[in-house]
């Protein structure tokens, strides 16, 4: 049994599909490229694919991951040597906006994505609900104040219940990148690194803590990185090739 980790994007219109939808897309894509998958036992054999952190419906990402088990002794694709070929064929079999960008065989006993990933870098645009432009300077000050404070108490909806808790420790970094430009004239682009343990903090939830009384709204949220931090070091589950990963999202880069 070989475990393969794949990194992929979710950009453009397809961002409105759900986490479950993405799982089904991948199952079909694996069958289309005839990657010999390992199947579970039992009445309804399923391919053994595990996804990491769920990406909220409507969010884009440059850094999604999955681990898949490939059957031993299977002929065909050699994941070790044919990575660019495999990535190309998978991307062709996946919807526009979902592209496989990196793959690697995992060492035996490697921890799962859910066990490993500790934080994510997000970028998004803050706009006001039809009440004129956001002041980048004032928002930057708010960000600094938030980071300087020792608590950030938010009330969030969790599985139909309201939960009030201090999420300050989940905000690892927060900064204003500048005016957003079209199509969000008057909006301001933000970037943050937010912990996903013990529970993920979402950009929209953080925004509620930033704006005066929830006046700010989130547009075009995009995950740029997932991080594994341990003993002071930080790395990605898979390095993406050096294209587009850290470039600020420009409208032309959107898949639609």
């Amino acid at each position: 049994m070989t475990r393969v980790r794949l990194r992929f994007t979710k950009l453009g219109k397809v961002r409105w599909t759900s986490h479950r939808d993405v799982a089904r897309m991948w199952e079909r894509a694996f069958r289309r490229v005839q990657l010999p998958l390992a199947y579970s036992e039992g009445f309804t054999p399923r391919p053994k694919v595990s996804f990491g952190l769920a990406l909220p419906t409507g969010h884009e990402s440059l850094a999604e991951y999955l681990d898949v088990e490939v059957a031993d002794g299977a002929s065909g694709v050699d994941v070790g040597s044919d990575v660019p070929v495999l990535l190309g064929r998978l991307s062709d079999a996946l919807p526009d906006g979902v592209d496989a960008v990196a793959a690697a065989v995992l060492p035996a006993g490697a921890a799962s994505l859910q066990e490993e990933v500790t934080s994510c870098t997000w970028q998004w645009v803050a706009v006001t609900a039809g009440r004129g432009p956001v002041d980048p300077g004032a928002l930057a000050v708010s960000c600094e104040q938030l980071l300087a404070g020792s608590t950030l108490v938010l009330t969030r909806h969790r599985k139909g219940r309201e939960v009030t808790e201090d999420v300050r420790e989940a905000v690892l970094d927060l900064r204003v990148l500048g005016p957003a430009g079209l199509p969000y004239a008057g909006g301001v682009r933000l970037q943050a690194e937010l912990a996903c343990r013990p529970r993920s903090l979402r950009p929209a939830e953080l925004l509620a803590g930033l704006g005066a009384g929830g006046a700010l709204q989130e547009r075009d949220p995009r995950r740029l990185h997932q991080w594994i931090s341990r003993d002071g070091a930080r790395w990605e589950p898979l390095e993406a090739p050096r294209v587009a990963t850290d470039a600020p999202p420009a409208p032309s880069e959107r898949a639609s």
Partner: protein
Amino acid sequence: MTSLWPRIEPLLARVHKPARYIGCEDGASVPAHGPGRAAWLLVYPDSYEVGLPNQGLQILYELLNERGDAVAERSYAPWTDMEAEMRRAGVPLFSLETHRRAGSFDVLAFNLSAELVYTNLLNCIDLAGVDVHADRRRPEDPLVVAGGHCTFNPEPLADFVDAFVIGDGEEVVGEITEVVAAWKRSGRTEGSRRRVLRELATVAGVYVPSLYDVSYDGPRLVAVTPRYPDVPAVVEKRTIADLGAWPYPRRQLVPLTEVVHDRLNVEIFRGCTRGCRFCQAGMITRPVRERPASQVREMVRSGLDRTGYDEVSLTSLSSADFSGIDEVVSGIINDPACSGQVSVSLPSLRVDAFTVGVAAEIQKVRRTGLTFAPEGGTWRMRQVINKLIREEDLYGAVEAAFSQGWHRVKLYFLTGLPTETEEDTLGIAELARNCAAVGRRHVRAPSVTASVGGFVPKPQTPFQWFRQDTVEELRAKVRLLRDATRRDPGVQLRWHDPRASVAEGIASRGDRRVGAVIEEVWRRGGTFQEWSEHFDLSRWTSAMDAHGLSLDWYVHRERPQDEVLPWDHVSAGLHRDFLWQEWRDALAAAGTPDCRWTPCYDCGACTGYGIEHVVGSPLPPAGGSQGTGQDLGGGMSVPVELRPSAVGAASR
């Protein structure tokens, strides 16, 4: 700026399942609009999950996009939350491929598979920014066209639809395209709308209701007559002679989000001559036209390769009747290219042990449940409806199922059938209990679900003259069944809401006057009437009252032989004499054989159009079948050679 996407996307964060509105399916076309191309928007007037898999719509979508003079996009009824957001933001109905305004197309073409979607059709027209009344539309508005099984009684929608297509659409969409493309080139000037409709009325299979006068005598319909000599007095359905000439869809749409029937679908034959008298589909789609087995295999193989699906459904009205079905199925299962991971499903299983044997082969791993449709609770009842399944056929099928690893069996029944007695109704419970007893011989806790629907008589069938049961009558029958099944832990009873059957009855056999009722139900917010959470019968009954229409007259009344029926000017080829004789035979509990394997009794469907059955084998399928080996009793002899071990039949 033709794309509404920048205005649609901000709405998506606020609605359930936003992936329903993005398009992007594998198999979707990238349309190139242009002045020389008739632009069709194919609309399924129910939710995306229900509409996307519809094969009829997908076939026409591909055929139109293959033409140089047409372009086709798709749309589905936005769910209620999305509709509210769209109306608030002033966003009209849009296409999924290019997110273009529905009102900018030349044709809005609706697929009508069920009567309860009629209010959604009105809602979609309105959301498109087009007047729901055909006679108030402007030259710049699209033509509103409708096709599908429901158009065999087009009258309830006659005020809202410019043109109906009757029968198979494969050929006629091209002919309509030529007329519409010419209209588009002419600039769609003032007055041109009337001319284009007049021209469409001369296309065979097209019915333009505004070109007919309707006269009444009190509640009675007197006549529907064409206003002009070149407009046909009777519109005959279109039928493709050879399904093998139409291997579509070639590129079935693969949705990005969950839908019903989320699998590869390959239509293996069209039409059914089992002759079940309640079944509109079986009456209006005659004759049987099988796809060549080699083409079925090719469509399955290329479809699985392209889509990545691991399940294929071989669709038709009674798939076990396909000539050599067992070889086709084992060919798929054992195809090395499928590497043992493909499952096959056959909708509408025939009720016999042979069929279960085929099912056993295709469901090697996931043996969860099997469904059979005896429809009637007693042999007498099944003779009335001409679904000639003997009790031993059913028990044989159930025995085969439970002995081969299945734990659940579901049985479909209708209640409120002609001549139904208390004994017939209770026969449903008895069959279900006996099936559970058969199951106990093989498994510890067998489950038999009896699913009971209230019968709604349909146009163009032998039961079109029949009086439909009232809500109270249907409820009494359900109560009877509940009491009779309560004490058997192996039997679960499910029933369809009798109130929905009444609304379906209004829309099914209504005339033009019912249009006002549909409009009123829609104006009062009655969309998605197929969905129980949105259905409310009082909207329908109060609209009937408001327009002075009697529920008893339209729904709960038997029609005499000489009554002019609202759909008499639309023909499925069936002689009225044939339907009437079938109705009399039903009342006498006399069966009629399947003409696929027995001599022609001239129903009209073949002789009228100069076509015939296309079947791979002139012999009935192995294991026997309806009308080929049993004493049908009841005074009608069946002119066939008797074959050993004949078993009953089913189709839906």
